[in-house]
């Protein structure tokens, strides 16, 4: 490796990137490849592949962001996951360490949900300021970078079929539903210096062999190898500072030894995922920006979206062994379309998802009543079970939002984030539709019992610093650049305007590649 970069705290020529996950890690590497210097401040530590054990709860405890957070509002999390609204990693690589790897593009209409469906009462739906055609070339780059199976960009084959997939494929055939092998950011053949997947099955605990794409062992080391990117783990950013002109000038953080530091910056990219990113902007309020940095629109923290989710697990007469092989091997896509005739707008995917015994025992019926014969009998049938995770478009609602708790503080003395969410009626109708479709699907292959699970702690988090054409409607422009603070960028899923019927990460990465290209141009031409 070339010399690892080390930048001075007073070096005000660096781009400071906050967070090293799917968004932040990608921006860092893309900038480095284009010759732009950066410092990545990451709250979590560095892990190695040897840290990844095939054990659900052990890894949950090791990887998760467990700083204090509060769930509020009408969703069941307020009661059943009161301190864990979302399931996010704290570590170099962020949630790309535990993501499953499903990598689907948004559909063209999903960038234009307002023009498609008109105004929806109780929701704050808007069109994206970019179209599918704008992002398409970057989807291709993202697929190539991440090694997505079955795409034109990589030319790699699908992952092999496992029993869990076979059951769903046959069920889909019997019910006339559309089935696909999941396009995965998991190597089906050795590629990019990483091995092919061995079907270990613990993708959401960190891939032990690195077959699954994660910025932890792809973008980050590649960025470091250029000698232009310095990663500082165990560095929690507290506040973004600005100068008299209202431009971001540096960030305050606590370093690995607990000392407070100020890193000067030419440009700041915020990529802390959709709870921490708006929280940081709100915590960066100043005399000039009393409602929080970049918040003249009042939209920072608002329009928090998860996805309309839930799970359905069926018990079958004979073994399935869902735990053998990739966590998400396939999908049912028939309901992804926007078809208001079903009683709701937007669509959803049904993603085949295996859970281990430990997670299933907690998620089968979350809350204090999840015990008794119904639970133990289901778990006794573990090997005869199969399941899906519902991933449906969640509507942006202004009152679903991240706010700062008035009195509670975290270990750094910062106000704790409160995550308030209540399902829109559209969400409820969609979820019930999905439960009904799943019942049809599973009965066709002989299910003897069905368990409908409510949403898990939110794994997809989006929308809290959204893009908009006009400065009054959102936080950032079509490049993810703040309308108010020109050298401040949002580089994660919080820039999403709407959430689509598919997982977010491919789109986060595509936007990050596109944003980095734009930033590099602005740096080279001295505009920023």
């Amino acid at each position, binding site marked *: 490796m070339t010399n690892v970069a080390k930048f001075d705290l007073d070096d005000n020529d660096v781009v400071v990137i906050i967070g090293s996950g799917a968004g932040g890690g990608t921006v860092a590497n893309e900038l480095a490849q284009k010759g732009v210097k950066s410092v990545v401040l990451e709250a979590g530590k560095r892990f190695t592949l040897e840290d990844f054990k095939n054990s659900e709860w052990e890894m*949950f405890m090791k990887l998760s962001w467990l700083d204090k957070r509060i769930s509020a509002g009408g969703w069941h999390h307020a009661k059943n996951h*009161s301190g864990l609204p979302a399931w996010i990693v704290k570590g170099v690589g962020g949630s790309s360490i535990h993501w499953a790897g499903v990598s689907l593009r948004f559909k063209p209409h999903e960038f234009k949900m307002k023009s498609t469906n008109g105004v929806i009462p109780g929701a704050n739906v808007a069109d994206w300021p970019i179209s599918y055609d704008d992002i398409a070339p970057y989807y291709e780059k993202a697929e190539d970078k991440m090694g997505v199976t079955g795409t034109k960009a990589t030319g790699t084959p699908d992952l*092999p079929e496992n029993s869990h997939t076979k059951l769903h494929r046959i069920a889909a055939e019997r019910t006339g539903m559309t089935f696909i092998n999941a396009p995965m950011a998991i190597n089906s053949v050795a590629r990019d210096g990483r091995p092919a997947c*061995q079907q*270990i099955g*613990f993708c959401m605990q960190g891939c032990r062999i690195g077959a699954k794409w994660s910025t932890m062992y792809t973008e980050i080391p590649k960025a470091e190898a250029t000698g232009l990117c310095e990663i500082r783990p165990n560095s929690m950013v507290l506040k973004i500072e600005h100068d008299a002109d209202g431009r971001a000038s540096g960030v305050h953080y606590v370093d690995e030894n607990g000392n407070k530091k100020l890193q000067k910056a030419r440009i700041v990219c915020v990529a802390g995922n959709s709870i921490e990113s708006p929280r940081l902007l709100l915590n960066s309020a100043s005399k000039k920006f009393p409602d929080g940095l970049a918040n003249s629109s009042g939209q920072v923290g608002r329009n928090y979206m998860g996805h309309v989710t839930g799970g359905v697990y069926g018990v079958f007469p004979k*073994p399935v062994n869902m*735990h053998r092989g990739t966590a998400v091997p396939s999908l049912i896509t028939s309901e992804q379309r926007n078809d208001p005739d079903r009683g709701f707008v937007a669509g959803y995917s049904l993603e085949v998802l295996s859970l281990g015994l430990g997670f299933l025992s907690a998620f089968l019926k979350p809350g204090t009543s999840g015990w008794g014969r119904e639970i*133990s009998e289901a*778990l006794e049938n573990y090997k005869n079970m199969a399941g899906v995770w519902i991933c449906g478009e969640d509507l942006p609602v202004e009152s679903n939002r991240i706010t700062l708790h008035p009195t509670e503080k975290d270990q750094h003395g910062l106000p704790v984030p409160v995550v308030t969410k209540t399902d829109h009626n559209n969400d409820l109708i969609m979820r019930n539709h999905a439960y009904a479709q799943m019942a049809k699907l599973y009965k066709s292959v002989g299910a003897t019992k069905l368990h409908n699970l409510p949403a898990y702690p939110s794994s997809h988090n989006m929308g809290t610093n959204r893009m908009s054409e006009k400065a009054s409607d959102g936080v950032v422009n079509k490049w993810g650049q703040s309308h108010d603070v020109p050298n401040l960028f949002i580089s994660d899923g919080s820039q999403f305007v709407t959430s689509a019927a598919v997982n977010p990460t491919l789109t986060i990465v595509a936007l990050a590649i596109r944003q980095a290209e734009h930033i590099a141009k602005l740096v080279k031409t001295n505009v920023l």
Partner: protein
Amino acid sequence: MNNKNSSISRRKFLGSVGCGVAGTVVATTMIGCATASEDKTSVISMPESGHISQTLLVMAKDIYPHEMLENKYYQKIVDDLANQEKTLIGEGIAMLDQLSVEKLGQPFVKVGYEPDRIRILRSIEDGPFFGKVRGALMFGIYDNKDLFHLFGYQGSSWEKGGYIDRGLNELDWLND
């Protein structure tokens, strides 16, 4: 102690102390538990340990009943917990018995009819005592690699090379 007082202190007790296995954030964040409060005053006298142990065993088998699981597995999980959390568990058992005597005229272990016991347990499921016992059982049974095989779960697989050559697609009871 008169009845009115006892039911007030019971309510306070069952809804007061935080729950979760010692040091296990997971239990509180994932199962959802009563939140902590300062008020831990108790007027209960401690039951003797043999009785605690027997009562916990009955309770454990009502919470996650498995014919295939020998008593010794349940017993170890709850006894370990009782050793770690002497006061919470001791007081919890005393309360459970009191409730059981009030409702059914006998201590919990003597209640022979399962639905009666379940009804009593349901009435305290939101409280910290029940939450702790349940949390310990959930992790002790379902996150216990020594018991995985009873459920047909195979646990850690990377050291065996995953499933790529080990029964990845064995399902043979459905045909295209």
